């Protein structure tokens, strides 16, 4: 699903430069401890981290909903601190929480949002129709927003964020609580937007989404960036993988194979943990020699999830 990165000139201004951003809330909680990162134009960038890691604070600062304690961020070279209004023209935000007036109609919500960006009503109405249709909400455009389902409300927030046709679209857990079909249609839409040149920053707890969609990734924990690299490079660091094997009949005593740990889960399921250097052929050959027929296999956990947990746990061990 990952699209190739659009061609950028070597001197292209980064879509986002976060420079030593710090945030300490009034209650003393230090949410960001000097975060720095760069997102290239056209990128589909994953910003991951456990709850309370600082993702939403960082997004809040980028969208000017949170005042930073120190540091700055530049959106396509425009300072969020010094040129707030100009920077905001470049950003579209899909927040984590529903934040529109539920008594208004989706069409009005979108048109009004465009108006706040100074977009004339006629153009705003055309864009509202375009994006509500693309997000399959047009038939609900004149209903009160409170009548929409949870998935529809999330799609409405994407349509609203597109009204100023931003160069940088920030999605803060946009698929939380959304069923798989709607989630896929949302990603199809956002992938299309990204392919057309819009830079996308995504935070999500569905790590398979990030793995499929994003080219680059930063993992934040306890207010610091613990990893910032390409998705491919990060996944390549995974040295051990675990597979679930569905078998016709799991034997009581399992064969041994150097470098592979085999475990019997139940009468029809085995679990194999092996290093990435180890090939699967020898595993299948050994199982076959012992009369075990493998019907299907899958990763025990998502690869990115595995890495994510490891990075976050390593960070905590170091902190301890």
């Amino acid at each position, binding site marked *: 699903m990952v699209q190739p990165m659009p061609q950028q000139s070597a001197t292209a201004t980064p879509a986002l430069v976060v420079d030593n951003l710090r945030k300490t809330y009034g209650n003393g909680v230090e949410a960001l401890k000097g975060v720095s990162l760069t997102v290239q134009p056209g990128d589909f960038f994953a910003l991951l981290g456990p709850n309370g890691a600082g993702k939403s604070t960082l997004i809040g600062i980028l969208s000017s909903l949170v005042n930073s304690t120190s540091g700055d961020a530049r959106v396509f070279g425009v300072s969020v601190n010094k040129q707030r209004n100009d920077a*905001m023209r470049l950003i579209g935000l899909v*927040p984590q929480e529903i934040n529109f007036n539920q008594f208004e109609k989706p069409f009005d919500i979108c048109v009004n949002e465009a108006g706040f*960006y*100074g977009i004339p009503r006629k153009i705003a109405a055309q864009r509202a129709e375009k994006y509500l249709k693309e997000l399959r909400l047009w038939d609900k455009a004149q209903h009160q927003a409170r009548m929409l389902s949870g998935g529809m409300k999330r799609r409405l927030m994407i349509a609203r964020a597109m009204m100023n046709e931003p160069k940088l679209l920030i999605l803060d857990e946009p698929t939380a609580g959304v069923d798989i079909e709607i989630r896929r249609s949302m990603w199809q839409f956002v992938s299309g937007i990204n392919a057309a040149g819009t830079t996308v920053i995504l935070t999500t707890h569905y790590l398979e989404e990030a793995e499929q969609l994003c080219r680059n990734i930063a993992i934040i924990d306890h207010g610091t960036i613990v990893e910032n690299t390409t998705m491919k490079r990060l996944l390549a660091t995974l040295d051990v993988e675990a597979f679930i094997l569905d078998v016709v009949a799991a034997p009581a005593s399992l064969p041994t194979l150097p470098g592979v740990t085999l475990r019997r889960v139940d009468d029809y399921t085995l679990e194999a943990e092996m290093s990435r250097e180890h090939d699967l052929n020898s595993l299948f050959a050994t199982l076959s020699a012992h009369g075990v027929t493998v019907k299907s296999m899958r990763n025990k956990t998502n690869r990115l999830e595995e890495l994510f947990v490891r990075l976050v746990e390593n960070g905590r061990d170091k902190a301890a």
Partner: protein
Amino acid sequence: MSNATANLVALHTLVRREIMRILRIWTQTLIPPAITMTLYFVIFGKLIGSRIGSIEGGFSYMQYIVPGLVMMSIITNSYGNISSSFFGAKFSRAVEEMLVSPMPNWVILLGYVTGAVTRGLVVGVLVLLIALFFTSLHVVHPVITFFSVLLGATIFSLAGFVNAVYAKKFDDIALVPTFVLTPLTYLGGVFYSVNMLGEPWQAISRANPILYMVNAFRFGVLGISDVNIGVAFVVMLAFVAGLSFVALQLLGRGVGLRS
């Protein structure tokens, strides 16, 4: 597109949205003040007023209280409109739609104040029309009448905005009208002339900003006032300037809005 044009579009959008809100819930925004003021006219103006006779300047009691009641409805409705609308936006987080946009703070403030002043003026006209069923009125100074209404509505729109910025729950936006606005309105010369009071009550009454609004409006409509009309306008303009400054400071610092 220039910033000025963009700001104008944003302002138009916000004012339009506020007016649509007033019209959408007209049974809550326009009808209750009309009913309340009709009751005031019937009870205080007609039933009790007929026994009072002429109060000042040869006007009947009904004629005397009409400007005060009109101004009272304008003040309470401007205040109520902005405090409930802006706090509602805060409560539902819809305010974030504006906070993440490039709209400057002064546009947000002006948009909300214009919406609230509009409701105040519409209610004022409604109440004035109802008053005409009970008494005859002829406006002596139309320009003074208009500006006193405009400034009165603006002052209480700004005050309502400040209240909504600080409010953390719906109770907080009901406290000020109950414990501050209503007493000040009743003691602001709506139903009587402060000249009827002895000292020190007369001097204390002159510290009440609503006294100047009610009397400026009464001067515009009837040509009589308890206070110097020039002083009344200076006081009102000072309140507009002071409250605008406070509201913009609060928006700039993001008090109650940005973390």
